[in-house]
């Protein structure tokens, strides 16, 4: 049998064809002694098919907490007794957050709300917020507002939303162990609405929610089938009060193996370091990830938790001679 990394070298690096599910599983099963080799190959694939530039993004929570859904990893669910209390951001603060994000060199600013899907009030707030940001800040705007109707997808397109995030979060076979208040298929349907309207599709996952390696490989394959413009990779940060509070953090080697495997499954996708990387990988892991297939980062803080100092990430990119992607749209 031919070695999986040799196969990946010709299939992914040379021809640009992502690994299939069984092949991803073979990468996830590689021993620690092959990890460095897998990361180096994933990095070469990223350079060949995506280039050296790194996309930097900031995110902010417009509506925090009180969500009716029961995503077991999430401290913003109103169904669990967590330390997060409901909060709402005003338009002025939203614009200031976008301004601060742009000042770091970020080209993408994502407005996020903890909801099943947006109601009229939220759509109005998002519309006002986007208009105010576009008038004051030179940055692409993304949204993550849950499950959309066709009319809401139309509205967001009209507002000029550049990219819409809606994560699959978990493999289809594992989803019911993570969320019971909506289905994997509902999430998939929203992604189709987004794509049909010409907005970029951002669809990610959380590694470490009790899934098997087989389900991790299944998830990579299902993400590849969605063919998103961007895949944010989160690693479970077990939050107090959530059903997943007692799960262990993903070991660093497993997280890095997942990064390499997902890059080999998704050679042309923007693969973003997202939540949980500080806990799982620390400073050393951030470097290894960026040299192992990652080509985008969330700069600064997350929705309810704090991230690395943005300057640390920007210094790392400079040290590695990785230019920050510039805003490319025509203004």
């Amino acid at each position, binding site marked *: 049998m031919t070695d999986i990394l040799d196969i990946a070298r010709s299939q992914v690096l040379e021809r640009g064809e992502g690994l299939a599910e069984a092949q991803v599983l073979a990468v996830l099963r590689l021993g620690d002694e092959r990890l460095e080799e897998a990361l180096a190959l994933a990095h070469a694939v990223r350079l060949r098919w995506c280039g050296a530039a790194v996309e930097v993004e*900031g*995110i*902010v*929570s417009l509506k*925090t907490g009180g969500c009716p859904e029961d995503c077991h990893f999430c401290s913003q669910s109103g169904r669990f007794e967590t*330390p*997060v*209390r*409901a*909060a709402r*951001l005003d338009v002025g*603060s939203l614009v*200031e*957050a976008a301004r*601060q*994000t742009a000042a*770091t060199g970020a080209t993408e600013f994502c407005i996020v709300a903890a909801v099943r899907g947006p109601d009229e009030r939220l759509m109005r707030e998002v519309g006002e917020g986007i208009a105010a940001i576009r008038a004051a800040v030179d940055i692409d705007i993304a949204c993550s507002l849950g499950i959309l109707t066709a009319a809401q997808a139309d509205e967001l397109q009209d507002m000029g939303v550049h990219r819409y995030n809606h994560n699959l979060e978990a493999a289809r076979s594992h989803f019911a162990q993570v969320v019971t208040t909506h289905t994997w298929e509902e999430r998939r349907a929203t992604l189709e609405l987004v794509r049909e309207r010409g907005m970029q599709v951002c669809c990610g996952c959380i590694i470490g929610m009790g899934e098997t390696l087989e389900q991790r490989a299944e998830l990579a394959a299902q993400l590849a089938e969605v063919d998103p413009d961007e895949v944010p990779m989160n690693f479970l*940060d077990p939050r*107090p009060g959530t059903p997943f509070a007692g799960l262990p953090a993903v070991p660093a080697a497993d997280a890095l193996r997942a990064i390499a495997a997902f890059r080999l499954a998704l050679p042309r996708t923007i693969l973003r370091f997202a939540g949980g990387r*500080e*806990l799982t990988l620390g400073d050393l892991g951030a470097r290894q990830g960026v040299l192992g297939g990652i080509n985008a980062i969330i*700069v*600064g*803080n*997350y*929705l*309810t*938790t*704090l*991230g690395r100092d*943005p300057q640390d990430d920007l210094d790392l990119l400079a040290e590695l001679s990785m230019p920050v992607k510039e805003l490319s749209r025509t203004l």
Partner: protein
Amino acid sequence: MTVAVHCDGCGRLAADGDHTTCRARRAATDPPRYCTDCGRKLVVQVLPLDWTARCVRCGPLVR
């Protein structure tokens, strides 16, 4: 300097129990979550480069 009555990580009395995990979480990734004066949950807004926190009874948290 005021003495914290409640732990800002879990809201329980600071003098009661072990708050090692709370302190570790605060040092790593978490803003304060509970008012150290009254123990109520804070209204916390995390921003890309900053955060703010306010107690509905005791007012804004001053850093």
